[in-house]
């Protein structure tokens, strides 16, 4: 007969574990440590094929407790982790990696580097191949730390340069760090994934040593290789690189175009619009309008004066030229149902006017064109502006009144 209520080892430890988890969730570290003490003997029965066995549980929970407990020291933590490393060979590299992270978070960079180096040289039969991913990460982070050393050396060198010193040893050290870093970084960014920091560092290295071609290739790969996950930052890095090296407008625009497609609300869209507005090519100016409208679809930009001034400038320019009013019409079509409430309510008119006069000015201009001189927003702001005898509002009022027919064409 099955005595389900029979208290056995397994059930006892399960109960113990739930007490530990509760304590950890409530940040009662002493209590968690107390129950963990009783849980630890599960290691002597650790043959489970469960997803997470006792040794992994003890590693993770023990780490949590030691991180937060007031009486715990780094030394204790290190000794604990060393024991955890011996517990499960299948997890060895993961533990090493997380140990390194922990050391880094505590500012112990040299120790972290030492740990990573040791881990890198670890070999254990078929396990080495199985834990390949972790190994790659270890190499990558070691590469990153090499970069960090290189960076430090570089700073020293530049300082010495200024002071007129020549430091050969520092220079050699620096180059050696570069070589070590470059090797590992290059390897890891070949693997499809998100490697932002690593890519940046690697590119920094390449640029310093003048290998621009390699840098461009790396950035292109990172941005355009379909095997890599879609990553806005990749395009940002590429754009920044191209800009740094004075590349053509065409390449800059193509880099930013993709960013616009992925993240229409990105902050670089302002620069993008500015660039596009100035272009002689009609298509680009059209794109510029699309870009700036898209930016202002997002709540985060609602009170951004720069964005509104970009839109205002472009809309004004179009209205004055009396050409391409249909562009505005096209953009406005999908927005006319919700932008009025979103941007141009009476309440917003009041708050904008009170808080940010420039913002209200730019917005009023746009409102006046898109919604006509009789819209709430424009009426309120322009009235307030004129009352306050601010010159530009008088001009604005005149302008909108003059170009009301444009509004009629847009709305009709």
């Amino acid at each position, binding site marked *: *007969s099955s*005595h389900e*209520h*029979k*208290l*056995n*080892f*397994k059930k*006892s430890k399960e*109960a*113990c574990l*739930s*007490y530990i988890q509760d304590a950890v969730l409530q940040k009662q*570290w*002493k*209590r968690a*440590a*107390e*129950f*963990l*003490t*009783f849980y*630890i*003997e599960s*290691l*002597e*029965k650790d*043959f*489970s*094929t469960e997803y997470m066995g006792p040794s992994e549980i*003890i590693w993770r929970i*023990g780490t949590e*407790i*030691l991180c937060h*407990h007031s*009486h*715990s020291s780094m030394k*204790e933590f290190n*000794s*604990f982790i060393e*024991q955890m490393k*011996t*517990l499960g060979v299948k997890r060895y590299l993961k533990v090493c990696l997380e140990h390194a992270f922990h050391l880094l978070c505590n500012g112990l960079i040299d120790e972290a580097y030492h740990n990573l180096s040791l881990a890198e040289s670890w070999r254990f039969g078929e396990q080495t191949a199985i834990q390949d991913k972790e190994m790659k990460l270890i190499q990558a982070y070691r590469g990153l730390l090499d970069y960090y050393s290189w960076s430090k050396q570089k700073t020293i060198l530049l300082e010495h340069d200024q002071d007129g010193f020549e430091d050969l040893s520092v220079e050699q050290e620096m180059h050696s760090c570069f070589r070590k870093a470059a090797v590992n970084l290059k390897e890891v960014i070949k693997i499809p994934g998100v490697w932002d920091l690593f890519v940046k560092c690697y590119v920094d290295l390449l640029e310093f040593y003048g290998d621009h071609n390699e840098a461009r290739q790396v950035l292109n790969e990172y941005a355009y290789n379909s095997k890599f996950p879609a990553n806005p930052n990749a395009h940002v890095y590429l754009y920044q690189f191209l800009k740094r090296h004075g590349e053509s407008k065409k390449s800059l625009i193509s880099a930013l175009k993709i960013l616009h497609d992925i993240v229409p609300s990105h902050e670089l869209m302002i620069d993008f619009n500015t660039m596009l507005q100035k272009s002689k090519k009609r298509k680009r100016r059209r794109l510029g309008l699309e870009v700036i409208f898209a930016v202002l679809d997002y709540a985060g930009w609602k009170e951004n004066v720069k964005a509104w001034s970009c839109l205002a400038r472009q809309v004004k320019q179009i209205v004055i030229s009396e050409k391409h009013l249909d562009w505005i019409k096209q953009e406005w079509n999908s927005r006319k149902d919700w932008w009025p409430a979103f941007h141009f309510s009476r309440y917003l008119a009041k708050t904008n006017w009170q808080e940010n006069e420039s913002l209200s000015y730019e917005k009023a201009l746009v409102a006046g064109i898109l919604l006509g001189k009789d819209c709430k927003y424009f009426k309120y702001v322009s009235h307030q502006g004129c009352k306050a005898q601010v010159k530009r509002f008088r001009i604005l009022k005149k302008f909108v009144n003059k170009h009301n027919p444009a509004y009629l064409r847009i709305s009709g």
Partner: protein
Amino acid sequence: DFNERCAQCSEVNWGLTDGGRFYCRSCHNVTERTREVVNADFVSNVRIQTISKGLRKQEKTDGGCEWYVCEGFQLVLKKQAEALEALGVHPQMKDEILCNFWRRYLQKSKQAYCNRPAGETVKAFSVCDSSTDVDSEPERPSLLHLLSLSESEGDLQTDCSFASSTSKVSESTSVCSGSVDGTWYLMKNQKDKLRMTMPMTLSFCYMALLWLREPMTLSDLLRFVVEGHIPYLNVFQHFPEKMKLYGLDLKIFCVESWPVYEEVYSKMLELAAFLDLPRFPDITDSCFLHPDMLCMKYLMEANLPDELHNWTCRVVKKICIGEVDFLTLVPGNKSTRNVKYDVLAAAVIVVVLKLLFLLDDHYEWLLSDFAEERNKNNKEGGPYFEFKKWYKVIKCSLDVEQKKLDEERAKYLWRCEKPLFYSAQKKSKVLKRRQMVVNLQNQFGKLSGSVRPAEKPNPSSFQLRWSEENTDGSCFHGHSLKGILQEKCGLLTAMNPDYWLCTVKLCTEKLCGHLAHYREVDFPQSYHFVLRLFSFLLRVEPSYIHDEVCVIEHKLFNKKLYKKPKYNTGLRK
């Protein structure tokens, strides 16, 4: 020790034949005397040797010696008996009763005290004998097979992983058990011979206690085991150094669960029948185990008014469960239902509470309010018992104690210092693990804050104590039931005219193992609360007590003597 002089050559130089008889080594005269495993103290210098023809020899490099499984159990029983004596049990239990029971068992199960002890068959099953020709033994049970046959208390998967790794190693080097007959012990079908297990040691103890009518119920005994006053878990650490324990011995002597009341109890019955014991000494109304006595005890512990005792006695008398013939154990008698004294007494109290308070989540509270009202005008004598007040006090204590118990259960340490390993190859790994565990325990133990020494609570028969000296009115022993009784024809009867049966029909025990099936949601919360209280005190599942309540009710209302019971099957909600 067999120290007689040889009849033929007058030497004292004895050996043992395969058949377990003594023979003189000087002149090879075989006697009729058989080997007795008499000494509770394992004497390693016993000058008895066995003829080794076919009998697997132990490697003596580790300083071990040959020992049989039943010797191990004998040691366990001895330790347990000593502990019981320390708790106040009469020494007669250890020196006479238990000893005799054990000897009789060995005899009946043919492990000793007979002509052909079962141990001689060991040689036929020497799995790990390196000298055995593989082809000549067609039936060689594999280690895995052996492990799977026995009731595994531990994680079978772990055992199999051990087994499979052990069997990979060549047969000649692995030794399967420290004991001589460990392998045989687990393998042979012993259904008819009642193979000894660790839980059965407690059955032996309880049987001896019952024989002596000691004031210790089975639930008390099991509680003392869990609290650590009676050796059970890891008792093998008290085995002498030379008795090496490994391999299959672990499956026999290492327990990984606490014994369950039902299991120990039913084994005891089997055992009593197996040993052909006569009728046990009478349980009369002056015995501790008599329902009247136990009810008194439990009423006190449950903080209920002493006056309830009159009612429990009435119920006991009415359904004749206070009779000597009902209460006394007659082994092998299947027609009578065997009595679990503690559960019975608890169930009687539950029934009495139902009689007086109905416990339908409604009436008891009304009655309590009524008693409260009457209490306001009650100037003389003790206060009237109010269910509501009692409930609050008990719930509070029970919750606290239950919480403590739950935490303690999560804190049990199952391992001990004496390391265990299945085989010599595993030894170093096991020791390293052990060392790491100890290190980690120290490390986190220091971070536990206030050092909590693992003290055993003092053994006590009472878990909850209530004193009338407490001025906070939390003791209800002296309270009067008058508040809920009424006078009718010069008699005090319950105001409550109703009763609901826990079940209309009892199940057939043989079919499903139970008399009733308790589900908390089907019953009033007050009823469940009362069950929970006794479930805590007795350390059994509420359903176990519920079963007994059902039986009592069916006896009580069988003849419909009580006035107009309402047949509510209790399926409320």
